């Protein structure tokens, strides 16, 4: 329990990050996911069992090694450095982590990266055009002032894109119930609903009618 003295910082770091040292680590993992078939791609890094996962992320095939219990959201954020997808809770309640998995919106904190092996994943980084033109949903959020701090926004935009795709004939209540799984603490939702309706093109754009 004694902290290494300051002068040992470098040695200490080397032990943590030196791959040579890491290979010599005992393979101590004892928890298992209960998945019987550990694939041939299982490797061990620093004593941890790692699985190879291949994801098509925003149209590009990406291979990575993750622990079996690594959540998809952590694989995206920490391994692939796609940090646009945010984390707002640990109970699948907030939707900040929403991405599209094979075209369907999913909370990426509710699945393991290994469960997404082979899947098409779209994150917020992948919805604008290659030339940087924002997706109509992003543009609508901008035009309707549907974000303040912006932390819920990537998840909200992804959920909204998938909602409009699935139910093109949305009304106000449809949007509100459709986005129930995505929490925003800043906006009070009205401008979000208006942005989504504007994209859905069914209801009128409520933002002006509500203004006096």
């Amino acid at each position: 329990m004694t902290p290494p003295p300051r002068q040992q910082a470098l040695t200490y770091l080397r032990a943590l990050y030196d791959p040579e040292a890491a290979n010599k680590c005992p393979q101590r993992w004892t928890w298992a996911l209960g998945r019987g078939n550990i694939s041939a791609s299982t490797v061990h890094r620093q004593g941890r069992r790692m699985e190879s996962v291949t994801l098509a992320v925003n149209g590009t095939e990406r291979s990575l090694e993750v622990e079996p219990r690594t959540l998809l959201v952590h694989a995206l954020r920490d391994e692939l450095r796609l940090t646009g997808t945010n984390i707002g809770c640990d109970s699948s309640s907030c939707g900040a982590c929403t991405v599209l998995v094979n075209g369907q919106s999913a909370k990426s904190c509710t699945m393991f990266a290994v469960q997404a092996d082979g899947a098409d994943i779209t994150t917020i980084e992948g919805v604008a055009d290659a030339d940087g033109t924002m997706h109509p949903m992003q543009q609508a959020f901008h035009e309707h002032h549907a974000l303040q701090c912006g932390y819920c926004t990537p998840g909200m935009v992804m959920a909204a894109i998938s909602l409009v795709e699935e139910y093109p004939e949305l009304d106000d209540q449809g949007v509100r119930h459709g986005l129930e799984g995505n929490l925003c603490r800043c906006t009070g939702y009205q401008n979000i609903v208006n942005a989504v309706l504007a994209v859905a093109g069914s209801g009128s754009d409520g933002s002006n009618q509500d203004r006096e």
Partner: protein
Amino acid sequence: MTMTDDPATHMGSHRLRREDPALLTGEAQFIDDMSLHGEIWVGIVRSTEAHATILGVDGSAALEIDGVTEVLSGADLAPLWGEGALPCAWPVTDDMRNPAHLPVATSIAKYVGDAVAVVLADSRYAAADGAAAVSVDYDPLPAVVDIEAAVAEGAPLVHEDLGTNESYTWPLIPDPDAVDEAFANAAVVVGERYVQQRLIPAPMEPRGVIAAPGVANGELTLYSATQIPHILKVMTAVTLGIPEHKIRVVAPSVGGGFGCKLNVYAEEILCCALAMDRGVPVRWTESRSEAATATIQGRGQVQHIELAADANGKVQAVRVKLLADMGAYLQLVTPGVPLLGGFLYHGCYDIAHYSFECTSVFTNKTPTDAYRGAGRPEATYAIERAMDSLAVAVGVTPEEIRSRNFIAADAFPYESCAGLIFDSGDYQAVLDKAVEMADLQSVRAEQARRRADGSNRQIGVGFSSYVEMCGLAPSRVLASLNYGAGGWEAATVRVLPTAKVQVITGSTPHGQGHETSWSMIVADKLGIDPDDIEVLHSDTAISPTGLDTYGSRSLSVGGTAVFMATDKVLDKARLIAAHQLEANEDDLEYVDGAFQVKGTPTAAVPFAAIAFAAFTAHDLPDGMEPNLEAHVTYDPPNFTFPNGTHIAVVEVDTDTGNVDIVDYVAVDDCGNQVNPMIVEGQVHGGVLQGAAQALYEDAVYNEDGQIVTVNLGDYLVPSAAEAPIYRVASHVTPSPTNPMGVKGIGEAGTIAATPAVINAVVDALRPTGVTDVTMPASPQTVWRAINEAQGGAS
């Protein structure tokens, strides 16, 4: 400065936010998005007991986990901070009791969530696994959970050595005899007791910290999801004894704060101390469940309010006794929160006599501190609920009782019975507008119809007229309240050689859109395009001077500093132009981004030419320093006093107790508006937070001091499905306190909404005999209230 068709005028227009694209595309960097080479992760072992002696910390199981490198108890860590307890910057009274609050407890854990040990690891997963695997041996002590129980005879003590659970008592009673006399002579007296439940602020981004040392020269860079990088820098220096000039604090993109990131937290001090000691970056990211107890909570008060009125319902005196829950320790401004409401219990009413007394008590719970509105929502709730009770007692409508008592529009500047000077307002005009928008006549007709029918869907109308003190604050006034800092704000306007402009602000946005609004202010004054202006903030290396963002102060203090710094730039530019035109500077006017001799547009010096001339310094007036840049530190002469009337219309299902907000009208006077789109957004979000206190949110503790509402499944932050549709309007009386005539809007919605919604619920239930509903008015609570009022079991 209201809406205008002049395209050259940006102030008053719905200009879209420049902050949006980075946030919309995922490019913005929040704290957890960052990664520093060689960083180690901190996992925190938190007390599972509300009050217990720590007998031992056993880290052996944690050390078996791959990636866990160390387990440190509070005692192991103590040398890192020595006497350096977490700071409380607001000793409201000289005899306030402020027990030392160490970042990690050494001997006694005082609340569930109190840090008791720390795990260091090489990854976030290992840190979390490690923290879960540490076993702590506790010897439980009796816990104090309820604030009224805390002050009862024989209550267990949170801090044994203090001999009491009271932290301080703060009275504001300008003329006690006059108050007594008013009550003795009153035709009508209303007395009410209200409970402000504790709230979890719950910004969508949890907190996070990365502390990065510069080993060679003893520097420290602290990245934190904070509202207050400037204050945090000073406090980190003071707490850990690191020379302040060696510290840089950076707030990256911050995902909302609502007051809970206005603090100096254990994890910030811990990561800094470890980083300096180990010479490596040390980081921690809060989980949502951790946030329930590791981040401050809001509210937590029991209020007793009495009104003394004449037979017409004109109030003569207000008397308030408050019991405020501090939690186990005093955080940065914990003790000051009740005081911020303590001046406003007379609301927006012309009441002659005032008596306020607050006793603040310790409990074995997470510390409370500023949460959106901080003291003012509580005060507004009490007076607005009590005014409705008075209306019933006198037999008039809620709008009539308010009209009879409002401070008159011609009474400003108005000196209040609590000793403030209100800047401007027309409270009656605001109420009239709200009444018109709400179409009160037809709502009341529908209400009458349903009452007559005995419908199980009763309609209720709730009013809330509020005034708040914002623009925190004149430094001298803060001094009189024993606050440990000033209330000024700093700004620099720097004109670059190519006539592009940098604005450096000391106020620290986390969703409020400062970059957009500040650029609009400067663009209008300089006659240039807002896109030619960059607004820099939130990094003490770039913006060394500032007091950050809280208390709806950004625009009225920070924005005013920007406005004044721009004036200063123009003053210097004018001298340069006069020199070039060989004219007297008094004969010049600034039109469309150029100086010209009045009425002679042919000879004009454009802004760009002045910028370049200031840079080359080839031909400046004698003695003038090169470059075009100005710095202003603005200390406001007074608070600002935003006000408004909100009307909620609810439908209550008397069979199930369910409440729906079916209409919500908000008319606010925040003075002149720089960007009405942003103002509306603040109102929307604020109203929902206030309505959420009324209907959904409650940080529930059981009698052992265990928190029950740990995550967002249990703590009911409303979704779009619960949110009402807001109909928002404004009435403008410019504040004479600052040159832009602005007041502040960040907290208004939250302040107004809670009593509006509860007043509406009580109004709906009046035929059932219900006169009060506790918050949150969940279906169960409402159903019980109805049942009880009708003589059934609760």
